[in-house]
């Protein structure tokens, strides 16, 4: 897989099994099912295995043996985040604990009444953030800008069992309606969130060094965030031991219209997170091609 093909792994049946196990037997029981599911991917997903192995071996400089074991651990951790997301959406929020690092920054950002832009990545579990925000008097709608390709039957199924709408999706559309949705959301003082680490064929890209090697990133999020004169922050929601999450928010400091500087800062910030949580890098394709 040379670049992300726009599709997430798994089937609706697989997700249904998880949801039922989780509801009837608990979250930890659902985790135990992952032992087998992660192993299945570990022995069958050649392309993903290769990409994620190279990430551990050459980007994080793990030994050969540790890299192989880490491939399995990566799938297992990814499965855990999916279970957590489903569990939280299905009303099991009280089973989880959390801590914030930089929430004041997000509050200050909204105090400016201009809306704000969040740039995240496919690490950790960003989509559960809103449930934790609700607990700390940070009641703000988050709009995640995404593409049609990422909307699939799995997400539709997961949304169908959700107790309340969580993150709102703004889909990038041919008719450009997303432009107005983004502008309207900002004018309502809402947050617009982009993932800064994946692009599709036909998107403009920018390159920057991440973990010691140059990679391509989507130009759009960095270009818009650097031009729109709204505050910008990097956010990550990372899973820790047991059922605990750690939310990070960091202010992005860059010169107006300097998209390259913003991307560079994003990479420095993302690198810190990835090194701290190496098993929560969920880009299972050749990121550094």
């Amino acid at each position, binding site marked *: 897989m040379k670049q992300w093909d726009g599709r997430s792994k798994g089937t609706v049946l697989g997700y249904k099994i998880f949801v039922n196990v989780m509801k009837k037997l608990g979250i930890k029981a659902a985790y135990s099912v992952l032992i087998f599911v992660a192993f299945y991917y570990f022995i069958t997903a050649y392309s993903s295995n290769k990409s994620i192995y190279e990430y551990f071996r050459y980007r994080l400089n793990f030994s050969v043996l540790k890299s192989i074991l880490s491939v399995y651990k990566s799938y297992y951790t990814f499965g855990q985040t999916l279970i957590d997301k489903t569990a939280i959406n299905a009303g099991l929020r009280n089973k989880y604990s959390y801590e914030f690092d930089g929430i004041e920054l997000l509050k200050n950002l909204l105090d400016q009444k201009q809306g704000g832009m969040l740039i995240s990545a496919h690490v950790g579990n960003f989509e559960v953030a809103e449930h934790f925000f609700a607990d700390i008097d940070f009641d703000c709608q988050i709009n995640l800008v995404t593409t049609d390709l990422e909307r699939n039957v799995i997400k539709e199924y997961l949304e169908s069992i959700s107790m309340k709408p969580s993150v709102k999706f703004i889909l990038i559309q041919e008719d*450009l309606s997303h*432009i*107005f949705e983004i502008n309207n959301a900002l004018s309502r003082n809402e947050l617009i969130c982009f993932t800064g680490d994946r692009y599709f064929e036909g998107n403009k890209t920018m390159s920057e060094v991440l973990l010691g090697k140059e990679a391509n990133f989507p*130009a759009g999020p960095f*270009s818009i965030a650097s031009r*729109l004169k709204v505050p910008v922050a990097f956010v990550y929601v990372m899973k820790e031991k047991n059922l605990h999450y750690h939310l990070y928010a960091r202010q992005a400091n860059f010169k107006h219209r300097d998209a390259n500087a913003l991307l560079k800062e994003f990479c420095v910030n993302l690198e810190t997170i990835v090194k701290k949580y190496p098993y929560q890098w969920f880009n299972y394709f050749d990121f550094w091609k």
Partner: protein
Amino acid sequence: MVKSKIAEKLNAILIDEFEVDPSVISEEKNIKESLDLDSLDYVDLVVIIESNFGVKLIKEDFQNMITFEDFYAIVEQKLENK
């Protein structure tokens, strides 16, 4: 504001915002191709027009906007109806 003045002002803004050579802009050229706009760049375009001319572009405006000339005409009409 007359059309030629609108075009002049728009061109200056586009050259500055999208960092393009003035030679890429001419009335009959395709605006998307000339400015190398992708789907997210249009967000900038809407904000630029609103902040510089005080008019709001709507979704339908983009359906008829192929060339720079179309773009000038749309902004001109918006200003007339302001």
